């Protein structure tokens, strides 16, 4: 009986997973973190999300995990046409005659995905909404069609968000279903040339026989290193491991530190520390980590497992620092840290820096986006802030325009289903409702079956803000235009639109992040917008050209440019004829906001009217403030 010799048995079970980890490390050169993360995910029965540039071995690693673990596996490649039946199983249409009437019932027979112990979900972000929703629910509940699932881990793969792809990125809330989140780097682009050399050598030595097998039968997968009984026993044993009290104490302190660092404004990236993930899932991973190293209970050092959870939950800077934060924490005697935490309690005098203050003010994870107080304060003049600009009317109109742009009125074969419409020709039977198509084939449907109506949802969209910083914008106008920019950034952040920020006078001064005009580093731009200085003369052509060039690459349709200015253009093509044409061709809406005194230059009206953009102007208020109203 295993009960009489638990230690011996546990060592044996741990050894099987250590072997799995080692074998997984051999599959891909230089991706050790991913190998460990996946091993922990399976041991802790958590789901994992792997992302990385194309061709870095995501799918290969996931498939190897499945093969090595000996688990019953089902692979599902997501694409825009994936249907409920691919996900759940075949349809059972039953007809019961009962006392003279007939009852039709539609049921689902559990398909291979629902019987899988490991589910490989390739290209998950390509899934249309109607498949993604049920899938994520199934993953969270581990229950479908009224029965519990044998599912241990789902491993999903997806592209890196930075890569221009005609797909919506998954939202942090959706990614939260995957406790383990791993980001793979390419060896070449990551500069790991030594590892690259190993891979080249491997390829050069490849036996022709093995290569031939690979080319006809796909990847050759390694044999299983453990039995299903071993795997399940290890999972049970790992879940039952004790967590030492000092580990829990350290965990609380770790969460405190992560919260503080996450609240820091200058950090960019996702922030989502949900209760779901940071309670049960995190502790399962910590236990699995301890189990894997053969420990009898989870010690503080096992908190290292949290590192594999953070890719979409913490800002990038905090992720990079994670090991350091943990190390520092484990090095600190607990009482010192407690004192430190005490100093930051509300009411206590804190002379710390601004980020600590912000952390105390708003501990919630993602409220930073909506809370204006979190954004850097606009620059002040003569030590006293001017009356604020009322930018809400502009933001409301802009939001309306953005929302309208999110669903393209044209039906699009590449789009996501949005309801049904009547069948137009027989080709569309493929997309028709299955049951209705069958009844139609039987001649029992009075009309034609309905088919999915697909409309394209734009891929997040993008907005570029062009801000006049010519000399005439000095003083209040600088402050007001900063407020407008910050407002737009908030709108964009809430919708995960990519943003671009170009300041201009006689030249365009784009603010690139990572070499790109459009990105999602909202807070970095917010900081930038607070520092604008007014110099030079006005030129519309250069900034419009810069913004349109930046927007040109993307295929999304929800693309906006907001031009913020106080005066007539003096330099460059003052009619911006070519830019207006280009914007029309690209389908970019050019919104104009005139903040100056006197009449709005007619060219601004032309720009907006031709491209379907909004027109706003700043109306001075009695108290010295400004209200943005439609022109």
């Amino acid at each position, binding site marked *: 009986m295993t009960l009489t010799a638990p230690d011996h048995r546990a060592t044996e079970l741990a050894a099987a997973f250590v072997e799995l980890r080692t074998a997984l490390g051999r599959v891909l050169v230089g991706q050790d973190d991913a190998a460990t993360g996946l091993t922990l995910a399976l041991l802790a029965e958590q789901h994992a999300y792997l992302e990385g540039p194309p061709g870095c071995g995501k799918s290969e690693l996931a498939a190897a995990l499945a093969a090595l673990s000996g688990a019953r596996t089902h692979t599902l490649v997501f*694409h825009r046409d994936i249907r409920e039946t691919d996900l759940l199983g075949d349809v059972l249409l039953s007809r019961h005659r009962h006392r003279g009437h007939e009852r039709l019932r539609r049921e689902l027979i559990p398909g291979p995905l629902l019987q899988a112990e490991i589910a490989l979900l390739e290209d998950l972000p390509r899934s249309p909404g109607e498949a993604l929703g049920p899938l994520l629910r199934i993953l969270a509940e581990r229950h479908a069609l009224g029965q519990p699932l044998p599912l241990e881990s789902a491993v999903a793969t997806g592209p890196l968000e930075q890569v221009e792809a005609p797909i919506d990125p998954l939202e942090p809330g959706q990614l939260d279903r995957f406790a383990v989140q791993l980001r793979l780097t390419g060896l070449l682009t990551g500069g790991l040339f030594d590892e690259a*050399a190993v891979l080249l050598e491997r390829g050069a030595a490849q036996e022709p026989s093995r290569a031939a097998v690979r080319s006809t039968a796909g990847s050759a997968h390694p044999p299983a290193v453990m039995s299903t009984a071993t795997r399940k026993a290890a999972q049970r044993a790992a879940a039952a491991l004790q967590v030492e009290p000092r580990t829990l104490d350290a965990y609380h302190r770790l969460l405190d530190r992560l919260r503080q660092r996450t609240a820091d404004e200058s950090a960019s990236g996702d922030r989502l520390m949900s209760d779901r993930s940071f309670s049960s899932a995190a502790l399962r991973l910590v236990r699995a980590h301890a189990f894997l190293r053969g420990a009898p209970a989870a010690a503080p050092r096992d908190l290292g497992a949290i590192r594999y959870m953070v890719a979409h939950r913490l800002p990038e800077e905090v992720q990079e620092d994670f090991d350091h934060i943990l190390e520092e924490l484990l090095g600190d005697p607990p009482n010192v840290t407690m004192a430190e935490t005490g100093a930051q309690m509300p009411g206590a005098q804190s002379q710390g820096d601004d980020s600590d203050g912000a952390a105390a003010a708003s501990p919630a994870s993602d409220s930073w986006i909506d809370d204006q107080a979190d954004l850097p304060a606009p620059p002040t003049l003569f030590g006293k802030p001017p009356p604020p600009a009322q930018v809400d009317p502009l933001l409301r109109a802009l939001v309306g325009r953005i929302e309208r742009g999110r669903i393209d009125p044209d039906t699009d074969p590449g789009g996501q289903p949005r309801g049904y419409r009547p069948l137009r020709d027989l080709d569309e039977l493929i997309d028709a409702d299955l049951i209705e198509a069958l009844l139609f084939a039987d001649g029992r449907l009075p009309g034609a079956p309905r088919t999915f109506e697909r409309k394209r949802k734009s891929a997040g969209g993008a907005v570029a803000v062009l801000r006049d910083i010519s000399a005439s914008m000095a003083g209040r106008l600088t402050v007001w235009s900063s407020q407008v920019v910050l407002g737009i950034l908030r709108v964009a952040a809430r919708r995960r639109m990519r943003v671009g920020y170009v300041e201009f006078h006689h030249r365009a001064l784009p603010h690139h992040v990572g070499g790109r005009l459009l990105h999602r580093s909202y807070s970095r731009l917010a900081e930038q917008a607070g520092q604008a200085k007014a110099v030079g003369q006005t030129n519309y052509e250069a900034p419009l050209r810069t913004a349109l060039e930046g927007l040109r690459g993307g295929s999304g349709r929800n693309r906006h440019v907001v031009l913020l200015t106080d005066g007539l253009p003096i330099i460059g093509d003052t009619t911006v004829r070519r830019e207006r044409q280009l914007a029309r061709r690209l389908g970019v809406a050019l919104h104009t906001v005139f903040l100056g005194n006197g009449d709005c230059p007619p060219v601004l009206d032309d720009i907006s009217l031709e491209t379907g953009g909004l027109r706003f102007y700043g109306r001075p208020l009695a108290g010295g403030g400004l209200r943005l109203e439609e022109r």
Partner: protein
Amino acid sequence: MSDLTPLRDLLDHHVVGHDEVKTALLLALVTREHIYVEGPPGTAKTRLAEVAAKGSELDFFFYQLHRDTRLAELVGDIVLERRKVKTDGGAPGTAGEAERIHQRIEPGGLLTAEVAVLDDISRAPGEALNVLLRILNERRFGAEPIPLMAAIATGNPMDDEYYNEPLDPANLDRFALQLRVSGLIQSGVDEAKTLIDRFASGSVVEQPDPEPVTDRATLDALNKRMYEVEVGAAVRAALLDVLRTLVLEFECNETNSLLTDRTFLVKAIKILRGAALLAGRKAVDLPDLAALSWMTTFRVPPEAHEALPRIVGRVSRQIQAV
């Protein structure tokens, strides 16, 4: 001189010029890699693909992609299977009868072809190509391996005047070989004259069906021999130096390039072996690195692609000097 000389002669007979595309096509057949050729309409892209396929007596699947292309058109027919199932009906007094409905694909098209020509691939919605290109990459559909040797895709330049979406970078990476062609007449090369002369003299028939000059067995044998081609340490070091130069000097990264490990660390070795084999050698030589130019066309920024022959030259000299 290699076993594919007759096929090369056939290509030369049917199409004037385009040396690089012809060599790259043969390379694709030998290495079993996919190839993407981009160029304006009327530059013999499709014709070359067709001659190569028919000349090697391979099962050939031609498909013109369009804006509404669906997966089923490429992989066969969608079949709905209906099976009667007995049920107990649940409640007493009910006679139960049920139908189980299963949707599957009857393999056809791409799944049964040895060479597939995917015309105007850039016209299909980028997202719809995902599954197609995954099939190309894995060479299996579900669990079933497919007989496909090479897919030859063509596309129009991704300028504004052609109404197509740019290919998704991940999708473009499935084509190991990538070339850009331009029309002979438009670019005014000498071959333009040959082209016109040949049509004027009647020495080419406009659309004859090419006779097979080679077969699958020959290609299989070549593919097997390819893996025996030696890739020495010097060549590997040179390849790595070229890649290092692209990353460090030309700043190729994840946002501006597709410098993927799959392509440049795994497939590049195959391409180099294939190039050596086509040149009739048993070991890869430094000049074979020139074939890397057919891999970088759409994967790195234009200035880096144009500099590639120079980089290869420099790296080769350094390696030789050691």
